[in-house]
């Protein structure tokens, strides 16, 4: 398996006796025909067609559905997720839209010695010169994820007090490495704790393909949506069945229903750097273009804004919100995160009348994740919310980030990224984001509404262990 996936995913691929070629169900049986792959309809076998077998290919989706390996073949990963695919879709005349994560922005900013704003503006120039239609910012859609998370937390908190089904601690859901690990190896006992809110990558995809396209006067199938992420695991997230939808076509009989994905392709920060090099562009001297304000957190004065917390600010935002809503406490200044056993495990709590009423944690990296999971399983986890991320140091240290310069240590780079991340970016409350308010007013109605649930929330599915993954060995 590629070293570039998060360590959490890599540890999931541990079957040393069964090489992928033997264990992989797909390679043995061949792929199901594409059309029947995701249909719920009863399948009718038509003899003449059934004979035609396509060449055996393993897609990321097949790998996700299997409990065996993830696959060692890097080529599998890149089928629909590569620079080539991205470039060819521009050539095909698709309306290519790009959503850039703030972590990728920081990675490029550190690499080029620019500010996040400069990077974003130059990326607009760079991508638009290639024919890209729009360049957006996932800090904007992340504010939707955060608002929905706040709302979900309040629901869970109140239900727990009245012994409901959705238990605490609520575990963050934005990290695809963690989700994949939870589904594949932890299974049903942990899944109810995981927030149902989609990640910023997917809330951006849902907003673009279900709503923004109409405002822009585009058909949804014209759009090719690419996100730029700090993490290879995001590629796996984008191909999840839960994030694929079909057009509601009232009249046309379902001939050739093309499934649409919220996110068509994911490029990593490092791949964007490769693209810049490929195009032989002097990035630092590129002009700075105006930002696409429709889905970018930029204010009237041209400043970027977003939440604190370089892994998405989930704990930070929900803690402040819950403190205010549940206990009437407005917390001034930075939250007092205390390091527990290492810098990747921190907690923050709220005391009211000498009693701890809220206890949140940040939990990054596989070993810390193990301890949270263990505590949840034996019912000894006293946190109300845990921001779980698979990578040590969180998302800024994602496997897709630009590698350290020669002579630069990984720790130095992380520190640099932490500084750059909020450089000239103002801190703003997601609930006051005018872009997001507009989306709720025009489309989603209220946080937690039926529409918000439909478009901004998802489900998790335990992966049943296949027999091949349980073969007896010593």
């Amino acid at each position, binding site marked *: 398996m590629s070293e570039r996936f998060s360590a959490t995913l*890599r*540890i999931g691929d*541990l079957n040393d*006796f069964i090489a992928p070629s033997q264990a992989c169900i797909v390679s043995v049986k061949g792929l199901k025909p594409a059309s029947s792959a995701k249909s719920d309809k009863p399948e009718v076998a038509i003899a003449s067609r059934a004979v035609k077998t396509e060449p055996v290919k393993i897609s990321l989706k097949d790998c996700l559905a299997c409990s065996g390996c993830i696959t060692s073949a890097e080529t599998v990963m890149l089928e629909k997720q590569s620079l080539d695919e991205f470039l060819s879709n521009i050539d095909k005349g698709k309306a290519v839209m790009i959503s850039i994560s703030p972590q990728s922005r920081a990675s490029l900013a550190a690499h080029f010695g620019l500010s996040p704003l400069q990077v974003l503006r130059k990326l607009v120039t760079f991508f638009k010169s290639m024919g890209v239609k729009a360049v957006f910012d996932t800090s904007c859609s992340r504010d939707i994820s955060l608002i929905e998370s706040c709302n979900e937390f309040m629901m869970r908190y109140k239900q727990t007090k009245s012994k409901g089904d959705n238990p605490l601690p609520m575990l963050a859901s934005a990290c695809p490495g963690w989700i994949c690990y939870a589904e594949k190896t932890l299974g049903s006992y942990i899944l109810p704790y995981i927030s149902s809110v989609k990640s910023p990558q997917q809330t951006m995809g849902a907003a673009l393909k279900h709503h923004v396209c109409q405002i822009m006067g585009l058909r949804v199938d014209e759009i090719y949506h690419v996100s730029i992420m700090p993490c290879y695991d995001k590629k796996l997230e984008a191909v999840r069945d839960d994030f694929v939808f079909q057009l509601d076509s009232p009249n046309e009989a379902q001939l050739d229903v093309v499934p649409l994905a919220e996110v068509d392709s994911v490029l990593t920060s490092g791949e964007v750097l490769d693209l810049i090099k490929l195009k032989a562009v002097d990035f630092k001297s590129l002009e700075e273009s105006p930002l696409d304000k429709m889905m970018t957190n930029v204010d009237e004065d041209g400043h970027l804004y977003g939440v604190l917390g370089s892994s998405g600010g989930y704990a930070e935002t929900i803690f402040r919100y819950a403190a205010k809503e549940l206990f009437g406490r407005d917390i001034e200044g930075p939250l007092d995160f205390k390091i527990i056993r*290492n810098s990747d495990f921190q907690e923050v709590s709220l005391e009211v009348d000498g009693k701890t009423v809220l206890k949140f944690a940040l939990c990054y990296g596989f*070993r810390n994740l193990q301890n949270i999971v263990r505590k949840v*399983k034996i019912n000894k986890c006293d946190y109300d919310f845990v921001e779980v991320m698979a990578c040590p140091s969180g998302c800024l240290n994602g496997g897709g980030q630009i590698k350290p310069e020669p002579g630069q240590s990984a720790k130095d780079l992380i520190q640099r990224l932490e500084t750059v991340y909020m450089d000239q970016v103002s801190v703003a409350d997601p609930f006051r984001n005018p872009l997001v308010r507009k989306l709720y007013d025009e489309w989603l109605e209220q946080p937690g509404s039926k529409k918000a649930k439909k478009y901004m929330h998802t489900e998790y599915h335990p992966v049943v262990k296949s027999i091949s993954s349980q073969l*007896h060995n*010593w």
Partner: protein
Amino acid sequence: MESHDGAWSLKEVQKLEGHTDRVWSVAWNPAAGVAGVPAMLASCSGDKTVRVWEQNPSSSSWFCKAVLDETHTRTVRSCAWSPSGKLLATGSFDATTAIWENVGGDFECVSTLEGHENEVKSVCWNASGSLLATCGRDRSVWIWEVLPGNEFECASVLQGHTQDVKMVQWHPTMDILFSCSYDNTIKIWAEDGDDDWHCVQTLSEANGGHTSTVWALSFNTAGDKMVTCSDDLTIKVWETDSAKMMSGDGYVPWSHVCTLSGYHDRTIFSVHWSREGIIASGAADDAIRFFVESKDGSVDGPSYKMILRNEKAHDMDVNSVRWSHGENRFLASASDDGTVKIWELVPVI
């Protein structure tokens, strides 16, 4: 070994029967068999159980004191007593490690450690009993911190081996962990002072190491020598600079001293170094062999000679050999034939 340079014989003290499948591993309780406490031994098996055996002080014969079952759902591959002898850790193919506490002669499962993706192959406590290491087929090595109240917290997940990890062993005096693997290497892991563990050395074919699966390793009492055994039919002895090691001045690397070959013609599954310097080995040829450092004063550095072998120690593969902690030269062996045997090595006068 100073005491006897002559011939030795191996006396079978008792055959312990009860397991209904192959026996994988045996472990002597370090707190028993001394100071008037009757000797105690744990064995684990493909029959999914762990048996605890105790020696009757008056008759000296061994009996099965407890059967720990209905916890592991597959083969129990490895067992290890904590230094205090209070806790027994058992690693199983069911991907879990169970912690059993001896409560007045009864064994209660007080904790289950999950996290390995599949088969756990080996468990080992450090010298102080504050850390527990496990390893397995998922190629990873885990370090657990032992907290009060039988709580365990994951301190590290080490990925470095490229194949199944067969055994983990802590250094007898320092918190340095050794692991050996199907990838033919021995890896040495140490903490960097920043709550992070790293591989500090890999002993592979390139530095005189094994050319096939390394199944087991063991240390001499001083902790400056290590013996390893392999599917390549050799036993290798390694050493480190003991003076430097004791000065605590950073990590001191290990180097290959000598290779014992030509003794086994089947895979060597187990080696164990006794307090007085006798190396016992158990192999797929059903035999147990004993080696000591040769005093011939060879110019090529230390060499080892075989002092005794029992070609038919068991009816099938010998999976584990373990010296007792007490004064006598007792050895326990576990075999595919489903039995555990207690032996005594006695000088022939």
